[in-house]
């Protein structure tokens, strides 16, 4: 008999066998229940495209619902339940996820055993794909390769996100983290139908799997859900430890960008009555390699956009990359190495440091770059938890590049020399505390929070995280700047001077 302690919003492991863990997060305030599946891989050039294609093909159809419209019909019948799948990188892990959200049974009168149906659907999609001759249906694979290709190409549409992702990519060009979540076009083209199906079988059988259930579910129903999951993963469980994930190597230090709330005030206009969402934040950046070198001046004339590598004596040892496109506003991103893993105490110091530097309206960057200098409308800094990176980004006038860099670096120097006011420090700590409180009000964020804890090898619940944050002193924040190293400056601009050379 399953026992579940009545603990609100804490992840309880119901079952664990070999490569699979099932967690339940009990919470009664929501109208919905959710189920999420996370298959975990290392982020590598070899598997990135295959991982990305797998959920894309699976969502095209399954045994009981063999096409996309039939899946959508079923979701509509289930009171507009949602289903989503895809891949995401967390540091140098590559995660294949499947997620469903459906209204709680208390709102449903006309469907018997309603709670069983969304689970059956998502399990079917994952385990029972439409096949032809022991391969995925060929048309599905071809179409999804095309779709993935355009998804990679369209990263450029969202310039704000593009400037963030490109900076990270340039910075980690020779590391797995430099790989885009959805891979690159040459890698995608190489994936054969044979290989893809073999890969899928391997994912299901061998990849470590974490399942998270949230909501208010009776013990009986939880038991039924678990039994259903046993059935589908029994095969999975027989292949113990065949897929090794580097959990201990340094390269797996990462940041969870979701748990770091961005500066809301950057979003002043929200066209609610305008009908279309203009948010392209789902489109991520192209890892399409700009080949070559460190600190060399180079130019790729074949590209629509010119990309330059240059060196500035003031910033010796810092990689500087300039890319040009037809834009009205330039984007400046500065990438740093924090040299800190999320398992270290210093990681909590970094959270406070980042907040003081550029997370809220009280932060140094917002105050100096926007409010005092009027150089930017948006500017913020963010952490990449798992990989140990930090990034500052803003949108500015093309001619203001050097001025902005100076002011930004001066803010870090200020912290380094102990110039942190009580107001800045206290606002930062309180703002992080508030952000932790907000996480608890969203089922997806609660799930992501615990999943990230597991990946990082940490075990903080919301309260212990908060306690640790509150203990961080200003001195610690000042000292952490010693570990911070500026690595790459990325500039997206429209202005290109001379032949293959960006003049400082």
């Amino acid at each position, binding site marked *: 008999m399953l026992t579940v302690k009545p603990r609100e919003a804490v992840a309880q492991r119901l079952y664990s066998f070999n490569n699979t863990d099932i967690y339940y997060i009990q919470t009664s305030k929501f109208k919905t229940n959710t189920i999420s599946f996370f298959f975990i891989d290392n982020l590598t050039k070899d598997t990135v495209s295959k991982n990305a294609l797998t959920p894309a093909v699976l969502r095209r159809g399954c045994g009981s619902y063999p096409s996309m419209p039939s899946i959508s019909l079923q979701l509509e019948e289930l*009171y507009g339940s949602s289903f989503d799948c895809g891949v995401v990188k967390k540091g140098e892990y590559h995660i294949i996820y499947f997620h469903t959200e459906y209204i709680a049974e208390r709102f449903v009168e006309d469907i018997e055993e309603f709670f069983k149906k969304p689970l059956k659907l998502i399990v079917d999609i994952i385990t029972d794909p439409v096949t032809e001759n022991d391969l995925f249906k060929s048309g599905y694979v071809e179409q999804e390769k095309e779709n993935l290709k355009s998804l990679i190409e369209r990263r450029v549409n969202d310039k704000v996100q593009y400037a963030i992702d490109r900076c990270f990519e340039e910075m980690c060009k020779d590391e797995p983290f430099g790989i885009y979540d959805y891979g690159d076009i040459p890698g995608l083209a190489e994936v054969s139908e044979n290989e893809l199906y073999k890969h899928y079988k391997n994912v299901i059988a061998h990849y470590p799997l974490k399942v998270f259930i949230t909501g208010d579910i009776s013990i009986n129903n939880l038991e039924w859900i678990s039994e259903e999951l046993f059935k589908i993963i029994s095969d999975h469980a027989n292949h113990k430890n065949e897929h090794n994930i580097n959990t201990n190597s340094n390269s797996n230090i990462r940041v969870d960008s979701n748990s770091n709330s961005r500066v809301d005030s950057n979003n002043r206009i929200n066209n609610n009555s305008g009908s279309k969402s203009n948010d392209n934040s789902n489109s991520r950046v192209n890892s399409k390699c700009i080949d070559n070198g460190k600190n060399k001046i180079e130019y790729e004339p074949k590209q629509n956009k010119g990309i330059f590598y240059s060196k500035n004596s003031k910033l010796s040892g810092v990689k500087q990359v300039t890319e040009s496109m037809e834009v*009205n506003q330039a984007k400046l991103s500065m990438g740093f190495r924090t040299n800190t893993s999320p398992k270290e105490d210093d990681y909590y110091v970094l959270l406070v440091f980042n907040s003081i530097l550029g997370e*809220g309206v009280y932060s140094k960057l917002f105050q100096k770059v926007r409010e005092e200098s009027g150089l930017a409308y948006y500017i913020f800094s963010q952490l990449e938890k798992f990989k140990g990176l930090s990034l500052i980004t803003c949108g500015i006038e093309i001619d203001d590049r050097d001025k902005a860099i100076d002011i930004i670096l001066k803010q870090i120097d200020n912290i380094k020399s102990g110039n942190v006011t009580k107001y800045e420090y206290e606002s930062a700590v309180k703002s992080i505390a508030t952000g932790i409180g907000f996480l608890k009000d969203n089922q997806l964020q609660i799930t992501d929070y615990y999943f990230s804890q597991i990946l990082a090898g940490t075990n903080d619940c919301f309260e212990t995280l908060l306690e640790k944050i509150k203990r961080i002193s200003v001195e610690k924040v000042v000292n952490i700047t010693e570990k911070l190293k500026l690595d790459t400056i990325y500039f997206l601009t429209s202005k290109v001077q001379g032949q293959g050379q960006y003049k400082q």
Partner: protein
Amino acid sequence: MLEKAEYDKIDEVIYKYRHDSGLNAFIIPKKGYSKKYAVFATRYGSINNEFIDPYSGNNIKMPEGVAHFLEHKLFDQKEGSIMDKFSKLGSSPNAYTSFNKTVYLFSCTGKFSENLELLLSFVQNPYFTETSVEKEKDIIKQEINMYRDNPGWRSFFNLLESLYTENPVRKDIVGNLESIEEIDKDMLYKCYNIFYHPSNMVILVVGDVDAEDVFKQINSSITTKYKNPEIKRIFPTESCEINKEYSEEKMPVAIPLFQIGFKDDANNLKRDELLMREVLIKILLEILTGRSSQLYNQLYEEGLINSTFEFDYTGEENYAYSVIGGESKDPDRVREKMFDTIDYMLKNGVAKEVFERVKKAMYGRTIRWFNSLEKISEVFISSYFKNINLFDYFDIYDKINLEYLSSIMKEHFRLDRFAMSVIKGV
């Protein structure tokens, strides 16, 4: 006077309080939530550029982007930026301007009444100076530039410019680089004094709070007791005809973006009619192009659309339209196929089972809104200014039927009322 309404079907309650000044305040308690969310909104947005000053009787026309500019500057107070005070409480204030409203808000976990006090205070106390207004222009210029580089935003406003000839909804909410130069502090004060009277505003609090305490606080913090003369907003006459069928712009995009819009006529519709029209057109759009539709799946399989494809309907008293859009290598082909399907639908009608299924799905999604304090607030505020109660969204499903759906379909999907906007790569 405190009023309470209970909606047992979805486990929600709403409290209402009416202040002497004509301001209405509402509370939707959310037990168990950490977040507390409050908004203070005025029925004044980018389309309200022309009006009659109720004090002088003069006809006034403002430069584009004034409402949004005012929103930025209201955060400045005599003693400095109000942001600092929110930061000291660990909360985050924010604001947004849309076509027909400006919304100020904060979210917090603790010290709710201190936060609410700040919100009520800064929205009621403007402090504009020449210098601070001039300085803000640099920041807003960067905001304008950011939107100029956003292809989705550009495509949307190009579409509205095609659908509308005169209506100010065709103009960008932020204004443009020239119009913001004209703005000065006197204009901001003038607009503030007219549109920020409590009788033109609403307060909503969502979260685990005590309704009575909150209303007491609002009562003592709203200083205005008198009612305001009615504001006369001036709208140019706009015919039902569209301005032009097609617009195109070149930007650095990898795949063309397109938006197809149908201009709708919701003029003079009130409350229930407006709500019913909105829900029915959304059902029709879902049936026509939703994920389970033949059209969507045909376009998807032919590689003509991808997962960015989406649609929505906006129905206000002065403007109404539906928009369908996404990315496509061949937007013309998408349009052709869509027209064929509309043609077919108009001739053959909608099957009852399809209508019932989509209705059920939308009902379920409406329940899901109530997970998110932000969503509750967003829908509440935009409904409120149309005299619609948020909870009417649940009851409406019992009132709509297939016959009404068919008649709305014929009114809305008119091929002489459509326009298309395309953003192509450079």
